[in-house]
């Protein structure tokens, strides 16, 4: 197969430009053969090389005293005290999930789990961030059903709880859904594993599943726009086996408890190629691999196929010499393949042997460091002016339409298909502001949230970037957690378009600012570009996954009203900020004006105040205000608690603005009337805008007597029913 002539057409098929090909020839000092061309093409793909994004990613803040490992490893690592670390990352599996939703989503979960346990962590929680097209698009139902089933099918079997996430709909995702999966794991700080290979002569070991022909060129597919015939790419989607993954987790953790491993790396995108190149490159060594020894699932596999296969559930390790036998026993116990497939060399090259011959020999440096880096031209997104957003006559209908509509309705239909309780430490289940999972055997807990508001990012990327970070911070705060760090998944359109690149640069600027202001660095992440079909891009969607810690998991808040007769306290000032709001889009069918401004100093001040109330035990009911504003938050709390609420809203704002404005840095608290009064005084003394706006009780949601007056039963039904009815094709039947 290496006899295949390298032609310009073949180079183009590999997603490489002619300039990039010249660069390869220069780096190698000769023409690559077919196998080598394949290897360069995946290593230099957008997906693996971050060639369009690297320049800008470098500007993000990645450090804090509690950060043990920032971006650049398989996942980020933070210190959570007591000798323990939280290890986490979020990753996209957008392109494969659109082509084959079940396997695309399932292997997305599998891949992110491996990124985390590769570093020595036991995975303890899965999260996700999902975006689908408009509900009545003919594919939406099928994609949503398949993705949810795939996430559940994998996570449930592996036995890691899927504890939360977010799901949204927008026409811009009609041809490019987003499936972003996040895993959080726990490890001891002195038992963290990295990928840098070391020790000339040390064995390179392959463990896990056998290698098949699936997923070849997955990374290249993920680096190109979709066209009508993208479905023909179905064979590039990998097939997952969560049972093997479960065995792999246990076997790896068992081996990690010994001191046999020098370096370990999962085989993710670009499989054996990227794992061996990463390990050798980080360690500054060479690798020689004997491909005849690679466990193979199919007959007559060629070096090109073995190196580019993205078969799932595989890992590569460098062991200390003499530990092979002991390690092999562990993998045999778990009925997994174990093969010494090569050794470390001092050549600095990736050398591939097959049938006794050298079939590839490439300088590792050139595969990594010579990869092109583009500072792509961009135009900043024009600023929008603030606009007046019209009121509606029927507020009751507007509230019911929002709370009982696709974007705010209950996601129960989704998360009931995920085992969110396995491992016995989920103390806040899906449906709240953040999921909370205890650190097993301790009083501590992790609070986790995934968020982004693409509407805002589209209207003003800088503001949207700030808001995405701030919202995860606020959600973690609202359950009583101290936010520590984030991971991200940067989903954008084609970076070769100046306006898209402008969105990317703007969002990163806002994110960086928010991370710095909130002491909330980025420790890991992933970039997914070319989310376009026939030239139409998605809304800019920098999904953020935040992780925080709670010292005392008994001190936790949830959104549900707990009792009748409790006072409702609104923390933070409400401004007339209806531009790019959910109300504007869903009720008025418009998208105009500047999105809400994120004042990071206010965000921090208000959040720190609220968190202290939860930590000191004064408050157990809290909800942040976001999509849909004050009224949506009130509805959530009332529905979750099964208790009505009656509030009075006065002041200078028109009523529709007071109810639907999406001003940031706001929280609702419900507390005993005396406690509420104390909180009001404390807030006032701290200069924080605060107002007691009403009380819980009764069986209606009421505002200003009857300005809004909806029976709780009707509200709860609208909220609960939309998604099951939609999925059962009882509504929006055209789709």
């Amino acid at each position, binding site marked *: 197969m290496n006899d295949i002539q390298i032609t310009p057409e073949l180079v183009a098929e590999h997603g490489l430009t002619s300039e990039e090909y010249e660069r390869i020839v220069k780096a190698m000092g000769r023409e690559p053969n077919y196998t080598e061309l394949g290897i360069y093409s995946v290593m230099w793909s957008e997906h693996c090389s971050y060639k369009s994004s690297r320049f800008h990613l470098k500007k993000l803040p990645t450090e804090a005293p509690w950060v043990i490992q920032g971006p650049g490893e398989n996942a980020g690592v933070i210190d959570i005290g007591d000798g323990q670390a939280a290890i986490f990352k979020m990753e996209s599996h957008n392109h494969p999930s659109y082509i084959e939703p079940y396997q695309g989503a399932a292997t997305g979960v599998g891949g992110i789990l491996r990124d985390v346990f590769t570093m020595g962590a036991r995975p303890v929680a899965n999260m996700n961030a999902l975006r689908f097209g408009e509900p009545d698009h003919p594919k939406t139902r099928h994609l949503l059903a398949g993705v949810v089933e795939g996430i559940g099918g994998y996570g449930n079997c592996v036995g890691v709880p899927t504890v939360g996430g977010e799901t949204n709909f927008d026409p811009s995702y009609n041809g490019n859904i987003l499936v972003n999966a996040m895993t959080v794991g726990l490890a001891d700080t002195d038992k963290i594993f990295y990928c840098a290979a070391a020790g000339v002569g040390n064995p390179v070991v392959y463990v896990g599943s056998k290698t098949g022909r699936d997923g070849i060129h997955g990374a290249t597919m993920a680096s190109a726009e979709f066209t009508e015939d993208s479905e023909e790419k179905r064979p590039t989607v990998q097939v997952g086996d969560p049972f093997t993954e*479960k065995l792999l987790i246990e076997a790896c953790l068992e081996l990690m408890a010994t001191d046999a491993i020098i370096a370990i790396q999962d085989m993710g995108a670009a499989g054996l190629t990227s794992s061996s190149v990463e390990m050798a490159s980080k360690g500054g060594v060479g690798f020689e691999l004997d491909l005849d020894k690679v466990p193979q699932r199919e007959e007559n596999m060629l070096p090109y196929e073995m190196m580019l296969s993205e078969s799932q559930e595989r890992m590569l390790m460098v062991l200390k010499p003499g530990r092979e036998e002991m390690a092999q026993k562990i993998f045999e116990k778990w009925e997994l393949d174990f093969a010494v497939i090569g050794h470390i060399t001092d050549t600095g090259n990736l050398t591939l042997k097959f049938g006794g011959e050298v079939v590839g020999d490439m300088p590792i440096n050139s595969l990594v460091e010579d990869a092109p880096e583009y500072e792509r031209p961009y135009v900043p997104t024009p600023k929008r002016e603030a606009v007046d957003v019209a009121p509606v006559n029927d507020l009751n209908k507007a509230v019911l339409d929002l709370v009982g509509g696709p974007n705010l309705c209950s996601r129960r239909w989704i998360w009931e298909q995920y085992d969110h*309780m396995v491992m016995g430490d989920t*103390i806040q*289940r899906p449906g709240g502001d953040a999921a909370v999972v205890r650190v097993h055997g301790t009083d501590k807990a992790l609070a986790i949230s995934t968020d982004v508001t693409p509407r805002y990012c589209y209207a003003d990327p800088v503001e949207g970037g700030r808001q995405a970070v701030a919202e995860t911070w606020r959600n973690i705060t609202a359950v009583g957690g101290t936010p520590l760090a984030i991971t991200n998944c940067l989903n954008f359109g084609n970076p070769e378009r100046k306006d898209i690149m402008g969105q990317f640069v703007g969002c990163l600027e806002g994110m960086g600012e928010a991370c710095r202001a909130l002491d909330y660095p980025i420790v890991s992440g992933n970039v997914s570009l070319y989310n376009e079909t026939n030239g139409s891009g998605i809304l800019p969607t920098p999904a953020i996954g935040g992780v925080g810690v709670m010292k005392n998991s008994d001190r936790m808040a949830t959104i549900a009203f707990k009792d009748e007769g409790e006072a409702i306290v609104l923390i933070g000032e409400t401004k007339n900020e209806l531009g790019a709001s959910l109300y504007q889009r869903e009720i008025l069918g418009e998208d105009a004006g500047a999105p809400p401004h994120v004042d990071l100093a206010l965000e921090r001040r208000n959040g720190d105040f609220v968190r202290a109330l939860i930590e000191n035990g004064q408050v157990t009911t809290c909800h942040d205000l976001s999509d849909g504003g004050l009224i949506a938050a009130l509805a959530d709390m009332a529905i979750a608690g099964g208790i009505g609420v009656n509030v009075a809203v006065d002041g200078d704002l028109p009523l529709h603005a007071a109810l639907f404005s999406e001003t940031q840095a706001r929280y609702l608290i419900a507390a005993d009337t005396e406690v509420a009064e104390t909180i009001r005084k404390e807030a006032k003394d701290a200069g924080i805008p605060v107002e007691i706006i009403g009380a819980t009780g009764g069986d209606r949601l009421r505002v200003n007597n009857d300005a809004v007056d909806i029976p709780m039963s009707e509200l709860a039904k609208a909220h609960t029913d939309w998604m099951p009815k939609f999925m059962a094709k009882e509504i929006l039947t055209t789709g």
Partner: protein
Amino acid sequence: MKSAVIVFPGSNCDRDMAVALEKITGTKPLMVWHQDYDFETVDFIALPGGFSYGDYLRCGAMSARSHVMKEVIKRANDGVPTLGICNGFQILTETGLLPGALMRNANLHFVCKDVAMTVENTDTLFTKDYAGGEEIIIPVAHHDGNYFADDDTLDRLEGEGQVAFKYTSDINGAQRQIAGITNARGNILGMMPHPERMIEPALGGSDGRKLFTSLMNTLN
């Protein structure tokens, strides 16, 4: 009370079961890897939930034919109290220790949520501490919990008091809303809901505790 938790490749509620047993009985259970079938004598055997052998072939079918199950079958037939939760229940029906089968949920979706069920028979090793007809909340998490048996078997199970728990509403299509059954002798219980997940308020409730205290009080 000395307990054993059998661990198959793909079991994933083994730790949850061990935590519950230790918390409630005060004694750490013996964790028995499926290949270590010659395990020491115990007072109680638990088959935990999960996806043993990846649910390949049929849920529980491969485990039911494993070496360790030959030993479990022997001991269960000798009268050792044996509990199968979720995948453990599927294994018990696949071995024939319990009648019937667990089919795919009627709506074809995995379901994970708290469900209400009634304690149908309090005169068993596992249910003594519950009140007759008591309604309890225990979570389910399964794709194949739709209990099926022919009418004669169902009549016999109900007539002989072998139905231990019934859902109060239709959860998965199970015949007669059966959530858990015992064998005729009463020393083997299989159930789809997970009592080990409901043992403290932080997890949403404590209704699962009495199952373990019933056992402990009987055996000690």
